[in-house]
């Protein structure tokens, strides 16, 4: 039973995976089951759930249930893109710093410390108010916030792996550093490095939702879980479902991802819950 499958057997791992599959399915295929057009107002705004509109209508009178089915895709793609880009940047910096073991390492790590010393939400605010609220700005901004934390983990993992026999054997064979990294180092640091990707993915969702809340993120009329929350938040007393439904979906996604992540960490034999606090990302 190789490592990958073992985590499925553990109870929380199985629960985690089913939740993630359910939420992603809703996000991707939900739109084909949406009873109404998400952007068309169907009845009076903020009307309570009824037989026609299972989750009632939002502040504009649009059907919350349909918007819920449409709203997953952008949240997940944006967060995935941001986290992915963050990993891309973070991994390359971490690998170079960890593997080179030369002057570059302290220089890179000092700049990482500086980046981590910079309040991330402020960085995003300044970036957005400078470069406008395009989706690309959001993705790049969140990626740049994630990168320092990732590079620190990757560097530690790389340092640990690059003293191992099989890496030194490759170096002794005179293989080019690039080949050594890709063939010998990278495959062996993926597991520990990716374990905390769950937490990072969740954090990307949250920071995008917060930016929306501050009014700088996605623009209406896009139907997006994070935006639905910030749009309808102030009418929570009148029509709570317009906020609770998307919030529940995001919460489910987070719990699912992290249960799976923890299960994978356990199946790696070490309770390798990464040292990155949510805040380390910040």
């Amino acid at each position, binding site marked *: 039973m190789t490592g990958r499958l073992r985590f499925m057997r553990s109870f929380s791992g199985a629960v985690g995976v089913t939740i993630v599959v359910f939420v992603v399915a809703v996000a991707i295929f939900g739109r084909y089951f949406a009873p109404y057009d998400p952007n068309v107002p169907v009845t009076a705004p903020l009307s309570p759930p009824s037989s026609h509109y299972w989750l009632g209508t939002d502040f504009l009178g649009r059907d919350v249930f349909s918007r819920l089915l449409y709203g997953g895709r952008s949240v997940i793609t944006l967060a995935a893109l941001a986290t992915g880009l963050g990993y891309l940047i973070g991994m390359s910096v971490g690998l170079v710093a960890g593997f080179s073991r030369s002057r570059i390492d302290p220089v890179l790590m000092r700049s990482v410390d500086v980046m981590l010393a910079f309040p991330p939400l402020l960085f995003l605010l300044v970036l957005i108010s400078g470069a406008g609220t395009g989706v690309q700005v959001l993705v790049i901004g969140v990626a740049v916030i994630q990168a320092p934390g990732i590079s620190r983990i990757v560097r530690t993992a790389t340092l640990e792996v690059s003293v191992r026999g099989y890496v030194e054997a490759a170096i002794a064979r005179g293989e080019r550093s690039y080949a050594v990294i890709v063939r010998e180092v990278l495959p062996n640091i993926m597991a520990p490095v990716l374990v905390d990707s769950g937490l990072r993915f969740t954090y990307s969702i949250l920071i995008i939702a917060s930016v929306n*809340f501050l009014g700088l993120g996605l623009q209406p009329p896009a139907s997006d879980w994070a935006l639905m929350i910030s749009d309808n938040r102030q009418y929570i007393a009148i029509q709570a479902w317009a906020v609770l439904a998307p919030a529940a979906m995001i919460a489910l996604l987070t719990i699912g991802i992290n249960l799976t992540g923890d299960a994978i960490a356990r199946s790696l034999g070490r309770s390798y819950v990464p*040292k990155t*606090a949510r805040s380390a990302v910040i």
Partner: protein
Amino acid sequence: MTTVAEPRAADREVSPVLAFVGRRLLGAAVSLLVASVLIFIGTSVLPGNAASVVLGRGATPAAVQKLEKQMHLNKPLTTQYTNWLGGFVHGDLGDSSIGLAQGQKHAPVWALISDPVKNSLILALITALFMIPLSLGLGAIAAVYAGRPADHAISIMSLAAIALPEFVIGSLLVGVFFVWLDVLPPVAIIPPGQSPLSDPTKLILPVATLLLASLAAGIRMVRAGMVETLQAEYVMAARLNGLSERWVLWRYAMRNALAPSVQVLAQNLQWLIGGIIITETVFAYPGLGSLLVTAVGNRDLGVVQSVAMLIAVVYVMLNLVADLIVLLLVPKLREPA
């Protein structure tokens, strides 16, 4: 009987603690310096002429000229930077660009932000007072009872809290404690000059929101640290020497799990300062966060630069304090082999 070889002579040029602290201070200074460059470039690279943007509709050519002189925008970037940083170091946070635009000769940023800084710090400190013991306590419990119901309960709760953005947590709390139970004030309006502590009931919900959002990460990290130390050899050896379980947990496992947890909790506190922006807006709490957001919106360069620098200083200080605590906890760092 000759004793075994003498322990290796410790090099005594400079006491290790001073060297350690010295290095950390230097590192902190460098980080702050680079952060200041980042902040300065970040804010002054905003498109459009800063002065005309701040003046908005009143941006007649004459007014723009006057404001640019007042904001020293006509000087080369480097001099602007050195003046600003020089002033910052001496505690003069410069003027609010908006203030200058309104024709005030001198609109000190410090006057604007002295209250909000105090309020934000109070909120952060109260939250920290609860977060640190709770994170350590719950994290330890989750680790000791790893795999059993207590552990699952704590991790599910912490996962749920991580999942929700602060403003949703805030709204839910207000929904429950004000709209439904009507026991707690939903907003924390503190008149200027009055300390938030004068009316603590107003602080309950904001602190609860911050706690729920930050506690989760803290617990997860402390738990991870504890689980690893519980599997350490010296814990098994201690048990095999007949030490009581409580004694083993506290003096062997917890003590060695503290150092990594401190670093993590410091990062959590740093997040607190950043994360306060959302919570202050939700509860209309007159803190640094909401002021900063409006300043960025108004392109009030003076305020944004100074407040960002202030937050960066607090960030770096927290790191420094965490490092010093770790120094106290880990003898290896304090007294070299």
